[in-house]
């Protein structure tokens, strides 16, 4: 669901231009309001939805779950760590609210503290292994995990 901007709510602050990882949020040169210049290149990360201080950016719901004329509005609340959705059909009778967690730990608390880790030795630097390998890819438990090593095999055909 790519994002779009309500021009009447946007005040052209440029926060979405700054945050967009796909660099598709830009300021209209004549109207000085933000717009999504290439919706089909939208990653649907909703960073702009989250960054907009005026809730001027929304998402366009896919037609398979919300028919034309609907409204899909979203609030990503960083401090609460939740994402809240409200999907309303054009007749106003179907009005759905959803709320889900987006983090269970405070932001940044699970980031590795690299300053606390001892500096890598020359041998480690020359090795082809990356930081925390092989521990993180579990190769220290005896090589790569394969279907065979786990007693599994590929089933032929399409599996549902």
């Amino acid at each position, binding site marked *: 669901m790519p994002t779009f901007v309500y021009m*009447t*709510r946007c*005040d*052209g*602050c*440029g*926060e979405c*231009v*700054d*945050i967009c990882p796909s660099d598709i949020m*830009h*300021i209209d*040169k*004549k*109207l*000085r309001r933000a717009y999504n210049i290439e919706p089909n290149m939208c990653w649907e990360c909703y*960073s702009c939805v*989250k*960054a907009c*201080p*005026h*809730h001027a950016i929304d998402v366009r719901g896919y037609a398979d779950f919300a028919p034309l004329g609907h*409204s899909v*509005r*979203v*609030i990503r609340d*960083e*401090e*609460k*760590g*939740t994402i*809240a*959705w*409200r999907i*309303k059909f054009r007749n*106003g009778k179907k009005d759905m*609210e*959803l*709320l*889900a*967690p987006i*983090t*269970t*730990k*405070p*932001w*940044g608390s699970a980031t590795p503290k690299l300053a606390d880790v001892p500096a890598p030795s020359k041998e480690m630097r020359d090795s082809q292994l990356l930081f925390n390998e092989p521990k993180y890819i579990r190769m220290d438990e005896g090589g790569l995990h394969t279907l065979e090593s786990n007693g599994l095999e590929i089933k032929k055909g399409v599996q549902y």
Partner: protein
Amino acid sequence: MFTSNLFAELSAVISPTIMQGYIVLMILLVMGGTILDMLHKKSAQYFFENAKKAQKSAKRAVGGGEKASIAASVLVNEVLTSGEFSNPKRRLSHLLTMWGTIIFIVTTAVMIFCYPTLETPTPALLPQLWHIGALMLAVGGYWFWFFIRVDVAAEGLTWFRFERADLFILSLLATSTFALIWSFTGGGLTIFFALFILSSTILFGGVYWSKFAHMFFKPAAAYQKKITRADGSRENLPPDYDLTDPEVQRKFPDIPMYMGKNPPNMGLCIKAERAKHY
């Protein structure tokens, strides 16, 4: 220089009646331009249709007293102190420009109407306020034009690239700049006075093409936004959930399951630093 009424000194060359007539003409041009702008953009029609639509999805009725308190809060927060700007630099620049413009225009009108000639001595405070207003307008305006304007700050465009949308800020800047130069060069009927009048005529006469009219529809939009928050329609936004509320936890069991019954404050995340990563 800062304590003399330049318009009274000018009355020896230009009749005060002409100056007063010019002010009245400018007021009429602003009124006419605003009405044309409203008709062309259909902003009033959009506003009332939007308000009617919001009222349909209202969850509770907002009383007269509550409406009055919302109007008062819009006046204090949005109109007088430019509270809708979340960026403090934009807010400060807007405050300087807005209050500078008001002080500058009001003192000009008071000096021309109340103290039109040298026979009626002008209190020193009025010309001082006139200069302070023009200076505030110039400082806030140039700060905005060179550094804060979204084209320059967010889009990386050059400061000298301008569009019709810049008519308002450029004519404001030209008016204050030429007024100050006119004053510093001793007043009188000079080229700087002509430029001052030309830029102020463009400012007030160009309302239809510029964003001058925003001062009328922005407070109305801010009021409507606050009404939608009060009546529960919230412009179709999801409610502001209290995660510790047992009712919310019963409705959305994922919250207590993954976050606990009393979720902590998760921190500011992307709001921890200002948007400036270009």
